[in-house]
């Protein structure tokens, strides 16, 4: 994969990096003030871990190395092996500064190799008084700053102005943007030997060799003409590169049958002389980067085709914020549409059949239809194919497989599946973790092991995406070892996460879900792939943050499948409306497994706790009113409506007063003053203008766990 393709998600990476750096920055300062705080340390640690994963998958090795080293130190802090001191915070902050520098370097040059990290790595290590030989490894990575250009040789003509040459506006623009980014633009005049037999082949070699070091933006005559040998002895090439003139001269001269080469630098009018690197432009500009170092030269240099021609495009780039705003406005419209229908009904009730009423109803229906279409269109405008995320994986899987010495076939399906861009942004990291997990823990270490088990030597890792009803389903599956639940139980007990008793009582499914516990990791040693126990924890948190569900299906020696179900969008949500003590509550449908009507005499008490049995499984029951903290009157009903909510494999039944039906709702925050209220995800405005609260099912289920645990302890 060439560097050009990477740029597509460079923006996403940059935003991500920014966010994680901010978290760390904030965290380190707080850490210094408040001393050790496990929650805070975990948060910083996760940020470092996420950044490490993201930078490694983008191929920014120095950044990955540095974050890995930081992570080591943070882990020691977490384990209590090292205590926090001002000196340590200083070093950590210095690391952040360096990471920031790397980020800028990546924006400017597309890599982070120019940033020196060995010194910092040494400091980090010294700070924890551990001496491994990691710093030495890092030393090898360091690269030198590119030298300033010294045009000295006779072949180097004095600088020429672009205006003196026959350049189109497009080409001038390219030169200008190259200059701003700190690249040089050269005019190279190549003269072939008089007796040169195959001129086009020579020319091709020149192109090919130069394209390893930069991008050819123009040739005189055109590439097609050169290919057809429609030129005399010489031709001109305009090259955008980072190299100095001497290097370029040498490259061309190394090709045989070349009589003479002249290299001159190109400036636009009024531009600064080269050598002074201009200010770095916004990341936005990176969308069309000057191809800097292509590892694999293209089969045929088609410089004409490569120049991004400025033509009137059928697409417009829109600021994400605008789209968000539009989405919000449509949300308002959706609410008003519902209100309009409600009011229309009341008006009809009051006035009966009337021409005016009929007109109004007609308009209402039309407004409703237009609103729906508008909503759909804007949703679509925010949709991106999941390919955006998937595309970076094959390279990552390949590299990881190579590193681990495993032979792996990676299959990707359903790249064209579209989903909301907010969801796209969130789904990348969890998928990286899952894929790494499959590679690292899933697929067997040796081909022999696989053959013994009667599986093909080559391991299979499959990534798939598809639509299912109103959801996106993404699966990551492998045909590896599967999850050994016995080991998981043992480990969880050893780590003190659960008691021996609880471990033995766990069902197979519950045991598999142990891997989602914070601080749980099955890896025997720390690698940069996975294995610190933050991975799966992050995965679940991330997915649940975007109202998704993750499920695991695993069979020992057959393989593991992770299934992620995500909503199509985050702004609008289909919910089940229920009534509790005159309050309308919305339960996101993704979390609703089923609705039951439970006869009161089928409710039993277990461990001083109400349960019922559904199809052979025990379902704990809670009064939604009580769980939320409202008092509830004694229930005199004989049949109770129960909403069965599901978070991963957990099923909890919430008893409500009544069910009101399904509705599309727009999620609104409760605001700063109230802050986060446990059990609530926000609020929405109903058709009648009243406010309904949206339940945070995950929070509620967690609360029921605490309560039942407490009661059991008693």
């Amino acid at each position, binding site marked *: 994969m060439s560097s050009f393709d990477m740029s597509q998600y460079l923006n996403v990476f940059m935003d991500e990096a920014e966010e994680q750096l901010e978290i760390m920055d904030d965290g380190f300062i707080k850490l210094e003030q408040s001393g050790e705080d496990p929650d805070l340390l975990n948060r910083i640690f996760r940020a470092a871990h996420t950044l490490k994963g993201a930078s490694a998958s983008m191929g920014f090795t120095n950044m990955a190395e540095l974050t890995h080293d930081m992570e080591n130190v943070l882990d020691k802090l977490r384990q209590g092996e090292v205590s926090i001191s001002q000196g340590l915070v200083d070093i950590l902050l210095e690391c952040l500064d360096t990471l920031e520098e790397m980020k800028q370097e990546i924006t400017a040059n597309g890599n982070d190799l120019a940033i020196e990290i060995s010194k910092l790595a040494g400091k980090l290590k010294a700070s924890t008084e551990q001496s491994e030989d990691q710093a030495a490894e890092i030393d090898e990575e360091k690269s030198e700053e590119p030298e300033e250009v010294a045009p000295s040789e006779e072949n180097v003509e004095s600088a020429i102005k672009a205006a003196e040459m026959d350049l189109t506006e497009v080409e001038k623009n390219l030169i200008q943007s190259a200059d701003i980014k700190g690249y040089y633009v050269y005019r190279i005049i190549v003269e072939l030997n008089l007796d040169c037999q195959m001129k086009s082949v020579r020319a091709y070699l020149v192109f090919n060799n130069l394209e390893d070091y930069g991008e050819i933006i123009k040739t005189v005559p055109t590439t097609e003409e050169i290919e057809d040998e429609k030129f005399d002895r010489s031709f001109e090439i305009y090259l955008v590169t980072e190299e100095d003139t001497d290097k370029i001269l040498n490259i061309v001269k190394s090709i045989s049958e070349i009589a003479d080469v002249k290299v001159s630098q190109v400036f636009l009018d009024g531009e600064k002389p080269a050598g002074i690197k201009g200010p770095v432009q916004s990341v936005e500009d990176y969308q069309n980067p000057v191809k800097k170092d292509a590892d694999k030269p293209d089969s045929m240099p088609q410089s004409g085709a490569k120049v991004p021609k400025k033509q009137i495009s059928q697409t417009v780039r829109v600021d994400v914020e605008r789209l968000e705003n539009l989405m919000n406005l449509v949300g308002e419209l959706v609410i008003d549409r519902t209100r309009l229908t409600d009011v229309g009904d009341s008006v009809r009730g009051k006035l009966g059949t009337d021409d005016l009423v009929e007109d109004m109803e007609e308009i209402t229906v039309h407004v409703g239809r237009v609103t729906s279409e508008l909503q759909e269109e804007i949703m679509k405008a925010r949709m991106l194919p999941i390919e955006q995320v998937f595309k970076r994986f094959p390279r990552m899987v390949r590299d990881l497989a190579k590193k681990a010495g495993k032979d792996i076939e990676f299959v990707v399906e359903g790249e064209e599946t579209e989903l909301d861009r907010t969801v796209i942004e969130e789904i990348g990291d969890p998928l990286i973790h899952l894929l790494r997990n499959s590679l690292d823990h899933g697929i067997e270490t040796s081909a022999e092991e696989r053959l013994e088990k009667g599986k093909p030597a080559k391991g299979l890792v499959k990534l798939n995406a598809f639509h299912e009803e109103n959801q996106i389903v993404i699966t990551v599956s492998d045909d590896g070892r599967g999850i050994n639940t016995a080991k998981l139980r043992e480990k969880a007990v050893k780590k003190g996460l659960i008691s021996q008793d609880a471990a033995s009582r766990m069902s197979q499914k519950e045991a598999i879900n142990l891997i989602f516990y914070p601080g749980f990791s099955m890896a025997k040693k720390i690698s940069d792939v996975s294995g610190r126990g933050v991975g799966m924890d992050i995965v679940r948190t991330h997915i649940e943050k975007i109202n998704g569900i993750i499920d695991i299906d695993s069979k020992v020696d057959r393989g593991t499948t992770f299934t992620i179900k995500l909503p199509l969008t985050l702004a609008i949500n289909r919910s089940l409306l229920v009534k509790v*003590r005159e309050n309308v509550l919305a339960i996101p449908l993704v979390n609703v497994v089923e609705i039951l009507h439970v006869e009161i005499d089928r409710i039993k008490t277990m461990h001083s706790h109400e349960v019922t049995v559904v199809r052979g499984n025990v379902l704990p029951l809670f009064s939604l009113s009580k769980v939320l903290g409202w008092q509830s009157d004694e229930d005199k009903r004989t049949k109770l409506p129960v909403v069965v909510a599901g978070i991963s494999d957990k099923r909890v039944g919430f008893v409500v007063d009544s069910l009101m039906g399904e509705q599309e709702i727009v999620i*609104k925050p409760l605001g700063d003053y*109230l802050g986060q209220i446990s059990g609530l995800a926000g609020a929405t405005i109903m058709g009648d*203008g009243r*406010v309904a609260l949206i339940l945070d099912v995950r929070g509620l289920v967690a609360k029921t766990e605490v309560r039942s645990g407490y009661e059991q302890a008693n």
Partner: protein
Amino acid sequence: MQAEKQTVSEEQLVVFELAGETYGVEIATVHEIIRMQDITDIPRTPEFVEGVINLRGRIIPVIDLRKRFGLGVAEQTQSSRIIVVEVGGVTVGMIVDSVSEVLRLPANNIEPPPAVISGVDAAYLRGVGKMDDQLIILLELSKVLEKEEKKQLQQESFQEVAATQE
């Protein structure tokens, strides 16, 4: 806020009644004044938080100022109003007994607050304004809506909830 006051020679206040006393808040902080409406109860909030309302598509929390200051509960009447204020980026509705007028008060008519006045803690007060024979208690809204205190109160109510559950 303090700096502004010294340069302006008079203040414009929204004056309202609460448990028989007259209070004032700076007009600049007042977004709008609305009639009482349906308030959606929010669980696990301090007692003085009445819930949230829909203000033209925005969700706004509403607090009962009587309860906030511990002035006793009163029936809501026809003259009850919600004053929607915005302080430090936070928008909150405050239930008051009635809103009487908008008043211009010369800055030199404002005196620092006494330690305790009609049951309201001096910490919530900015001063006392004198207008003719009338005493107007000026509220320091940033204190009234302070988050730290709110958190603490929330914690307490949490414990209460936990206690009732046991």
